């Protein structure tokens, strides 16, 4: 019976760890999204220097979580998100306000889709 109790606890623990993972991933993607939005806002105000800093911060935050993201996400998803952030950074460096807006939307959308796919919803399960 001890084995069964251990296994039952292990299953519950796995579910708990998975739920903690959802919160952690949501927090990570939200932070990246917030930094991209901040960067886009500063770019709109013509403060390109701060916009660059915020965009770089977003890229650094995502790349610093590389080990974690490669453990829990499909590797092509991680790479595509990184490419989207770099695409946004390029437009910020080029000081192209319109293009930066489009690139920001693409990067934000990529982040939100990564977060959404891990949420426990009927759509995600089935």
């Amino acid at each position, binding site marked *: *019976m001890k*084995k*069964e109790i251990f*296994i*039952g606890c*292990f*299953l519950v623990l*796995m*579910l708990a*760890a*998975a*739920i903690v*993972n*959802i919160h952690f991933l949501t927090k990570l993607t939200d932070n990246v999204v917030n930094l991209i939005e901040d960067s886009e806002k500063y770019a709109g105000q013509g403060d390109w220097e701060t916009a660059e800093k915020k965009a770089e911060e977003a890229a650094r935050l995502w790349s610093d979580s590389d080990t974690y993201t*490669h*453990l*829990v*996400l*499909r*590797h*092509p998803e991680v790479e595509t998100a990184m490419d989207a952030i770099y695409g946004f950074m390029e437009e910020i460096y080029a000081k192209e306000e319109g293009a930066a807006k489009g690139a920001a939307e693409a990067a934000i959308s990529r982040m939100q889709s990564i977060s959404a*796919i*891990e949420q*426990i919803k009927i759509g*995600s*399960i089935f």
Partner: protein
Amino acid sequence: MAIAIIRTLILYAAIVVSLRIMGKRQLGELEPAELVVAVLISDLAAHPLQDIGTPLLYGLIPVLTLLCCEVLITAGVVKSIRFRAFICGKPNVIIHQGKIIQKEMKKNRMTPDELSEQLRKKNIVDISTVKYGILETDGTLSTVLYTDQAPLTPKQMNLPTNDVGYPVIVINNGRVISDNLQKMGFNEVWLKKQLKNRNIAAPRDVYLMTVDESSRIYFAVKDNCQ
């Protein structure tokens, strides 16, 4: 990750129920819950192996979830007769007093050909010699012959028997299994003597040597040492 666990639990339940509905003839010496694990685990493990872009956790978590399901279901099956009947089904008598119970055959979707095949595998060609034929929960057929058709035993013939026990391997492909040698009450000195009697220089020249409780020895020398 949570999605992987929930999906695995749903698929596990769905496949167990499907296999139960499909009936015993689909199984083949495995209970439905065991078959699900056997079928799914190999496929789940293959995905991260084939695609290096998929994290290993995507394979490990469903495998661990299946392992948990299997242990918990087995515990439930051992504890509760009702649960066992639900998960594994019940054995069905398909031959009674030498007659085929067609209703049970139909229920288990078993054809006369398949029944004949199962009987032939048991060296039974005449169904009328079978008192009971029971389709077990793992899909195999158990048979009980009429007593006048059952093989004779030495006891029925009042014949004395010499129970020699189970032969134990003491040399396996040149290696001496010391534990087995000791269990049988022998030692290396006895072994060397046995080898010497057979003109064998060392245990490495022996392919297989077994000894039973009556000290009967089976001996096979390696082909290149003959």
